[in-house]
């Protein structure tokens, strides 16, 4: 295979953006929590980089080759988890292996991208109903399992991933609109049968904050709004946010870290953070466009969608414009599973970019070899 890693194709711009985001993240995890979390977070970042560079040396086409097997294994893990997984705060999302815990639903996001891209890579424009049906099935089986855990946030991230890959693979616009329409139409059923009562409460609390009778969600939301609002234009200064430092803001170092940034850094610098993310997304989409390999394009667009949706939902949730579901802010929120998943996804994006000058004849050779 001629697609050896080509260092000249290393995307220094994204890498720079990434490093900036990581630095900001580490500082705010420090501000929002004790030093114990700071050191742990640094360890996660170091592990992330190691994983990132290691994965670069594996051709992403082997991900393509093994996509269905990976999908089946992660699906198996999800099923297993319902039976034996350890439980944190009442939900079964983790496997505990000694002091280390693994969250298969995080892997599912990437796995779904790899699988859908493999399935749809050579499909003709328009996509047949069969193709669409199988794609929906591929996405909805893991979604149902993840909802059961229950992890609403991660499950919902799978929906935009599905739609953007379908769209990029060439689904007819009319089909896409019908899909979205049907989705909206069956959402009441989803509400009735899939959601747990506390999840419903959170959504009610988000749509009609004044009507909610349960303050678990409302309290989070209000504290977050106070934190962000009191940041003003210039912020209270790093390490000086009252909402943050006095621990009124719940889950400060994980899901609500953007509220800490906005409180202590103010509007201008919070915008800078958002700008970094959109630049990151734009560069990612650029990579997808400039890649000749159809599999590579779909993979990149899926992963970029994952990053973008997570960012928008996470920030939106702290701003009170999205329901409070557990979604992390990529590369900033504290946490091992989220950090490592983000690095793996990024590594695959880089992988595609660095092998983007792949010539299609050698690709065919590669496929024949298997």
């Amino acid at each position: 295979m001629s697609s050896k890693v080509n260092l000249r194709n290393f995307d220094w711009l994204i890498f720079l953006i990434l490093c900036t985001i990581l630095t900001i993240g580490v500082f705010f995890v420090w501000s929002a929590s004790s030093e114990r979390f700071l050191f742990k977070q640094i360890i996660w970042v170091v592990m992330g980089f190691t994983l990132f560079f290691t994965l670069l040396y594996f051709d992403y086409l082997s991900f393509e080759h093994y996509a269905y097997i990976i999908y089946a294994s992660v699906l198996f893990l999800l099923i297993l988890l319902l039976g034996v997984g350890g439980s944190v705060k009442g939900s079964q999302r983790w496997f505990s292996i000694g002091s280390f815990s693994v969250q298969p639903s995080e892997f599912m996001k990437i796995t779904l991208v790899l699988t859908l891209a493999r399935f749809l890579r050579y499909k003709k424009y328009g996509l047949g109903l069969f193709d669409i049906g199988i794609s929906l099935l591929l996405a909805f089986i893991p979604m149902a399992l993840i909802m059961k855990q229950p992890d609403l946030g991660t499950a919902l991230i799978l929906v935009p991933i599905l739609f953007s890959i379908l769209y990029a693979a060439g689904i007819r616009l009319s089909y896409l609109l019908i899909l979205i329409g049907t989705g909206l139409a069956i959402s009441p059923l989803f509400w009735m049968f899939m959601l747990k009562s506390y999840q419903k409460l959170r959504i009610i609390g988000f749509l009609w904050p004044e009507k909610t009778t349960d303050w678990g969600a409302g309290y989070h939301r209000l504290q977050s709004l106070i934190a962000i609002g009191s940041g003003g234009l210039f912020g209270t200064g790093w390490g000086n946010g009252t909402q943050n430092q006095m621990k009124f803001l719940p889950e400060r170092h994980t899901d609500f870290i953007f509220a800490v940034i906005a409180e202590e850094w103010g509007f201008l610098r919070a915008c800078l953070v958002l700008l970094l993310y959109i630049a990151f997304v734009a560069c990612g989409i650029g990579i997808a466009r400039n890649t000749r390999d159809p599999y590579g394009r779909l993979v990149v667009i899926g992963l970029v969608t994952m990053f973008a949706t997570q960012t928008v939902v996470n920030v939106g949730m702290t701003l009170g414009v999205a329901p409070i579901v557990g979604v992390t802010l990529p590369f900033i929120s504290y946490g091992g599973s989220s950090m490592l998943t983000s690095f793996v996804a990024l590594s695959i994006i880089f992988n595609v970019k660095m092998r983007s000058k792949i010539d299609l004849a050698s690709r065919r050779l590669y496929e024949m070899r298997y």
Partner: protein
Amino acid sequence: MYPYRFKIILIIFALLFIGITVRLFQLQIIEGDKYKGISNSRRIDTSLLETTRGSIFDRNGRVLAMDQHIFDVSVQYKYLLYCYSTHSNKTISRITDLKIHNQTKKSCIECHENQDVWLKRLSGLLEIPQTKLLNNVKQVVEKVERLKQNVEQRAGREIRIKEETEYHTVISDVAWEKVIQIEVKQDHFPGIRITPKPKRVYPEQESASHILGYMGKLNKDEWKEYSNNWNNFLLASSSTGTETSTLLYEGYAENDMIGRTGVEAQYENELRGMRGKRFEEITCKNNQIEKVILERPSVAGNNLYLTIDSQIQAYAEKSLGANMGTIIVMDPWTGEILAMANNPRFNPNILNENFGELIKQPSKPFLNRAIQGTLPPGSIFKIITAIATLSADHINDDTVFECHGYTKYKNIILKCWSGTGHGLVTIRDAIAYSCNVFFFETAKILGGESLYALAKEFGIGEKTGIDLPYEKDGNLPKKVTAPSTMNIAIGQGNLLTTPLQMVRVYAAIANGGTLVQPHVLLKITNSQEEVIRTFTSENKQKISIQPAILEVICTSLQNVIVYGTGKDRGLDVYRVAGKTGTAETRRQNDNHAWFAGYAPYDNPRYCFVILVEHTPKHGADIACPIARELLSYLFPEINQAS
């Protein structure tokens, strides 16, 4: 592919980002002042509300354990501090260090006197000497000040800690009439608050204390574990119908009381209620509560109904008297435990006063002997040997062995309890007279393996699965030599069983060969007294005994009372079938006396085992009279007739 589609995806994301930036602008720039105001002057704080733990009843609805409200008198810290500095010689440095202190010293003393009024009034009302009250105040103040010092030292600046703004308990467990007086005349008691607090009460005192168990404080390590279990429990029950917003309810707090042993521990999750939460708006200036925004009420725990009949229980305990040991009364058909008496016992009501003393006692008052005491069963085990030999067709009920008072195996002499011997005995006589030699001889023929297999089938050496924590499994030796098999055949040697295992064996004989699962839970009801679930037995095994063999065993057990070791003990009027046993320990005149059986033999209603540990007497001499006393309560109609 379709380059314009990538552009459209980018545009969609860009629009979303612009959207959240606009929202950020709205919050931080347009409405910034509003939120800034809130964050600087007011906060929302949450506090947990207490809940009540479920009650425990016996099968007839008599209360065995319940939560009672006791009242604590708490005082706002400010007043405690004033009181402390006026009454103790030590003035707190941080008050005297204040610049304005000298200027306001005079007025301050006046104000201290005013602030101090509550102390005199409280001590008058509650009839507690002021010195005692002051002592409590001192403890609280010194603790808080120490804490404050530590916090400030670490931070390097002055910090107002939470404890300074809270109410602290100075007197616990205040009578209701006094509480009313304080509540009515609130103006007279500045800074005083009455807080109700649940307290676990056991109205029957010592009775059934091993079944009920006791409560203890949750330590830091257990806290996490319990919270996790609790969340899992809620999650599991929410999928079966009673949905609760699991993640929003706090399970446990440090220092919460939890069930440590007995039913209190076994059904901790059911008994435990859910704490409510109060959301209050607090002003930052003096941390006063501005208003209560919302209160989510707490949910009381579920009630337990036990299979125990508290009157039988009390009578069993009385029958046991001062003897160290245990009595179990069980329904032979369902496995419902009607009584489980142990001696010595403990009184859970006053446990925190004498816990340290009790735990050191050599008689082990916390040991639930019925399920945790493992002892050799002695002759009451012989029926298993008998069934094994009869089932293996090695002998029939006409087979005769001769007892000279001893038998030999190679060079070893094995003695019967009767020195002169029982002469020619059949299996019926052997059980009635409890002849050792007969069982030694059968053990020689039988061999260890089939005895082991049948004993295992009867559940010897395994936990019965009763719904009480810390059950022991005893010991059923597997690989044995011929002499030790002979020893086990008469219930001695390395064989160790719990009284509960033995009562189950006799229940199986009584009900025709079904091994029931003993249990103490009858049903669980919620706080509205609706039945949530009833006990369902998981394992009911049928033991393979031929009816003919069972008939031999049953009549032999009746013969024990009619002409055997249990005759003339007054048990015949109750139509008892049973077996005496005396397990020898290594020491002289130190036996474990057993009596196990069921009554009435033609239609068994009760099945029981009586064990007296470490007694010089034999089963027939000490356990049978206890059985008689117990039965006279269980069958009052027979009592009157005779």
